């Protein structure tokens, strides 16, 4: 049976459309390859190679002549115990010694960073002094509250020098208070510093 002319015409159109679609798909594939070649990121890497060497501490802690201090391994942390009287203030001169073993000048200060049961302390002053009795108040607690948590920078001259850490204490009762303090050791005119941990136990 012979198809009529319009039907034949439509079939030819349909074939042509199908061919055209294949052609378009093929072109898209080719274009896809083309674009993949022009796409990219600028990328480069810089390199840093830090080398960290374990070194002996330039500043060390030593026990004092008052209170009861324990110096831990490598002399970079310590725990100090002292009794806080309830009647008149007691002065412990000195509970720890800070010794410069390097030929460099340093600056040091104390920074209280945590505590427990300090409400009972009527008066607590932790301070530096040297052999010539120079005084630098570092941490102050008055009536159970800090009035100063971070002390001013204090010079620790080049070796052989030492600075003393002393405490004045008075409490309301015979409980126990703890104050954790950083001894910060700074290179002058820099922002390079070392932190030692000191724990003060006041009974």
């Amino acid at each position, binding site marked *: 049976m012979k198809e009529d002319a319009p039907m034949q015409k439509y079939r030819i159109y349909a*074939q042509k459309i*199908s*061919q055209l679609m*294949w*052609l378009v*798909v*093929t072109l898209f*594939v*080719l274009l*896809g*390859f*083309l674009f*993949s*070649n022009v796409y*990219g*990121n*600028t*990328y*480069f*890497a*810089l*390199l*840093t*190679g*830090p*080398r*960290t*060497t*374990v*070194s*002996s*501490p330039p500043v060390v802690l030593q026990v004092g002549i008052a209170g009861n201090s324990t110096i*831990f*391994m*490598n002399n*970079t*942390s310590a725990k100090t115990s002292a009794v806080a009287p309830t009647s008149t203030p007691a002065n412990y001169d000195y509970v720890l010694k800070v010794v410069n073993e390097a030929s460099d000048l340093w600056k040091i200060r104390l920074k209280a960073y945590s505590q427990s049961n300090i409400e009972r302390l009527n008066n607590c002053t932790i301070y530096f002094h040297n052999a010539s009795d120079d005084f630098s108040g570092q941490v102050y607690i008055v009536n159970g509250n800090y009035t100063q948590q971070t002390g001013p920078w204090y010079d620790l001259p080049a070796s052989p020098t030492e600075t003393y850490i002393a405490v004045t204490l008075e409490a309301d009762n015979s409980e126990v208070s703890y104050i954790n303090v950083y001894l910060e050791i700074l290179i002058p005119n*820099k*922002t*390079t*510093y*070392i*932190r*030692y*941990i000191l724990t003060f136990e006041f009974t």
Partner: protein
Amino acid sequence: MKNLKIIGNIKLNKSSKFLILLLASILVGTANAAIFYSLTMQPQVTVSIPVIKFDHADDEPAGSTVDDAWCSLTAKSYPNATLTYEQAVNLTNTDSVNAHLFRLTCISITPANGSADVGNWTSIKFLVYNSTGDYVFSLNFTVSDNNWGLAPTGGQTAYYSIPASASWSIRLETLSPAAATEGKVCRIQITVDVQ
């Protein structure tokens, strides 16, 4: 010859022919891609400053070397004491117009995991601060059971955008345990990947 005749006698409809054409075009496309790629691999090479470069900083440890595209820091670590170099080295965006993305990636560290020598460190931290002194991100190495723990996991940070002409600083913090042995050395290689 006989085989060729058989192939020649195969009848293909138009769709099959187009499919073959399509496959052929993919093949040609691949070949073209290779050619284009090789063309892009012939760039003009000009010596220039990296878009983001290392710069000297106030707390650069003594004995360190800082070049535009490479730096070697010689830091110390003390037993039971935290040593902080607040501005160990700076990263500067030399592009005065555009911000750029960069990240830190650890590519090697010695002593390697499992070595008893790893126990001579508690942590080594690289903290990035922006121009106004605000913390942005960090790459940290923390020791546990003679193994290095990297944070972020995998030792690679996300990308961060450094504004045009800005200079950011890398703070280096080191801490060794009380029983650390003097003279032990740790080497870390970090890349600063820039986009």
